[in-house]
């Protein structure tokens, strides 16, 4: 029998809220939130491009704020709230941001897309009518090598309009 090497021992346990649902997870204590999401919770929607905080591809919302999951320790996530791209949809439908990105060419290779989407969602949740400059700044923490960003800005603006319409209709 091969004994369990120390790196494999899942001795840390946390209970967190992931995409609106409580979930328990055990993991090796050296792991970051990124690794736990992808490897211990099977949520591979969140990506990684550098693991050093230099590209933004691993962005998730932690307690509603965009952070880099590659630099968040798993052991710091107990009782906290995490939102990933998998949790963007509402009642079985895509989030207006997802629809807009899909329709307006804002996703090409799609690798930075999850990070940009959750970051844009946090922006629109905080500020329903951001200016183009505010969108640029909010997204300045995620690198994209495919799009040149312009269609991404337009998709955020289109989603902004759609959300306002939906909110108006709901009233």
């Amino acid at each position, binding site marked *: 029998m091969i004994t369990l090497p120390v790196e494999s021992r899942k001795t840390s346990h946390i209970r967190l809220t992931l995409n609106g649902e409580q979930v328990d997870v055990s993991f090796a204590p050296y792991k970051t939130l990124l690794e736990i999401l992808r490897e211990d919770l099977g949520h591979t929607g969140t990506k990684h491009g550098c693991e050093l905080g230099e590209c933004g591809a691993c962005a998730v919302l932690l307690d509603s704020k965009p952070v880099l999951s590659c630099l968040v320790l798993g052991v710091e996530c107990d009782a906290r709230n995490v939102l990933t791209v998998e949790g963007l949809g509402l009642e079985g439908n895509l989030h207006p941001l997802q629809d807009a990105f899909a*329709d307006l060419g804002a996703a090409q*290779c799609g690798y930075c897309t999850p990070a940009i989407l959750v970051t844009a969602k946090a922006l629109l949740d905080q500020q329903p009518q951001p200016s183009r400059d505010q969108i640029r700044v909010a997204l300045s923490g995620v*690198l*994209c090598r495919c799009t040149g960003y312009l*269609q*991404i800005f337009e998709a955020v603006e289109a989603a902004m309009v759609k959300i306002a319409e939906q909110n108006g209709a709901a009233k």
Partner: protein
Amino acid sequence: MPNQKDSPDRSVKDSQANGEVLRVIGVPRRRVDARAKVTGQTRFADDIVLPRMAHCKLLRSPHPHARIRKIDASRALAHPGVYLVLTGKDLPTEYGILPVSQDEQALCLDHVRHVGDPVAAVIAREELTAFEALDLIDVEFEILATISSPEEALATPAPRIHDYGEEGNVHKRVALEFGDVEKSFAEADEIFEDTFFYQGSTHLPIEQHAAVAIKDPEGKLTVWSSTQTPHYLHRALAKVLQMPAAHVRVIATPNGGGFGGKSDPFNHEIVVAKAALLLDRPVKICLTREEVFYCHRGRHPVLMKFKTGVKQDGTITGMHLQTLIDGGAYGSYGVASTFYTGALQTTTYHIPRYLFQGCRTFTNKPPCGPKRGHGTVQPRFGQEVQLDKIAEKLKLDPAELRLGIVESPNTVTANYLRLGTVNLSECIRRVVKASGWKEKFRQLPEGRGVGIACSAYLTGAGLAIYWNRMPHSGVQLKLDRGGGVTIFCGATEIGQGSDDVLAGIVAEVLGIDTFDIRLFTGDTDLGPVDLGSYSSRVTIMAGNAALQAAERARELLREAVAIRLEVPKERLRFADKHVFDSAAPEKRVPFHEAICLAEARFGTIGTVGSYTPPKSPALYKGGGVGPSPTYSYTAAVVEVAVNPVTGWITVPKIWIAHDIGRALNPPLVRGQVEGSVYMGLGEALMEEQEFRRLPKRLSHALVHKFPSMLEYKSPTSLDMPEVVTELVEQADPRGPFGAKEVGQGPLLPIMPAVANAVYDAVGVRIDEVPITPEKIMKALAEKKAGRAPRYGPNHFPHIDWPEALRVSPPWEGGDGNAVNDVPSHRKPRPEKDKVLSS
């Protein structure tokens, strides 16, 4: 839910659609893989998780050049959690992308050639375990002299980085002369000589290279990899693992960006395959960002010397171009790259006589290869900046000068490239108009300037990487009785939208929605061979193959429905998921019923389409690089703001016009244009693949200056200017629905346009990239001191060029063969270039 939204009517005439309105092609629509991407469900290579999966890490050379004397992996093997350690002796067979440079080993056996060259592999239960065990492998190196630049390579024939190549550390020299260039200089009114340098850069895809290998349930090998070229990887795996290719399956997972950096077969792909076979468990590797810098295969740094003769009206009489190319440690696509640094100069402006000499050397740095634009980007920079200097001297507007010398469509150039449609003039006119060029050029206040540049690019390399007579792309279609259509094709989705191109074409022909189509692409077991996503070949080659397969399917359906509806088959139309009589549209059958009718008549329905590029008239040796079914054209105007004190440079706006033939899906096309502009801007202003050679007396080290995403500068959302895109759509009959390429062409004019704009702004020439504030400030100081207001290389070293192959241009009675060499079709082909048999 359909992918086509209710869009404004687009009445576009097209012969392939028999004069009908196009309902899919040219209509803005959601791409077929969009939903998967925006929900995070697209399965990239590192997202694959399999039971019992082990993790692999590579031990890499810390020395730029050394012999391996001894490797002792016993301590690593004994480390808890380690399953296997591999070294060079486990995978000694050499491979490489080009048949003429099979110079790589999956793990170096006895010679390491750059910092980062893989030496051993550890496969362990956890990735962290494998990483810790790397330090337990003891390697004894014997240090060899470091060769850090092409100049050093030319001066240092020994030690040889490779035992093949021309001589010493010269990998390849080419010399091609089309017409008597000296005579053309004698006929010129003015002669211009300029030296330029184009710094290397890398692709920096956000997704790091990753691969998973498994001995599948049947006992055969399957490898998933983030690769742009599954077919070439397939061949390399069969060769190195010494397995029948029929027992190897490569699945190209959607790439999180490629740009040419994932087009070679790589060490890590072969290593995990070997490990999976030995362990009979899945093995995964995902490279760190630093390791991606060591894979590289990026833009070759090129030193160029242009000598161009012109008449007073700007007509070019002849051009002599010399290039010195820094190849890095391995061949990769380098021989092709070398030819590319000369091949496309004749595609934009008429050049009646042309002499091209190129030299690639090896150096102890990560190998260079194809990056978006592959080898044509560098000389295009030189040519467009020199044209700007020519325009100034001749007192001509640079846009007007270019308009006067644009090459004609359907021409065969001096170097025997057959052009298709050429709408460069229209592109120039559009950007001149859109940017307000005439009011701005040489008229903006100091510190603001505009520059113009043009370019052309291939729509797929005319020759495959390995010589053969088979199609470059194949598509198989399956039509289901339920109305669903399945496309099988080897084409690879790297973000450019290749899946959507295939689906759009098939949907248009069959009159269905792209949502009704399922695609299986990039899988060597499921789909016919497509050579891969490189050289902008997919739209024309896979697209034409899909078109043929779809038209064949439509023909079968047409016949069966004609009988059922008792209508001449020529009157039948396919649209809105129905087949109907154009004279009496109420006579119709649903699409799925048409399939059933056809199946009843013909048996099971399945069609095949393929595409082989036309034979090129370039018959001389070396004529294989450059030919393409047709070429796209681009013109760009860039406006810059330069601070005359600090040299600080910003780019507020770019106007670009691209001769695309036809935009198959407009938002995707716009994305390619803007993405190319973005990447071009990065190269123009801030990207550089730079290396540090530590002081020789203290160290032999030659390291990448900053192999990280923080220090290798790629523009952020705050650095991207406003871009105005215009598309010129004159259908080129060589492309499906007239489409040409868009994934690479729009990158090329950006860098020279920036350089030309800087001159307009502050009167200094930066004859190299990247164009940085430091260089601008130095050039301004030179200007102030009354010296040449310029920053750039001054010297092109002497190179012993071989005797040039002389080929008479078409207008001088040439036939495409060299007059001083055995014609290529008569030469026996070397064994190693022949198709590999299983």
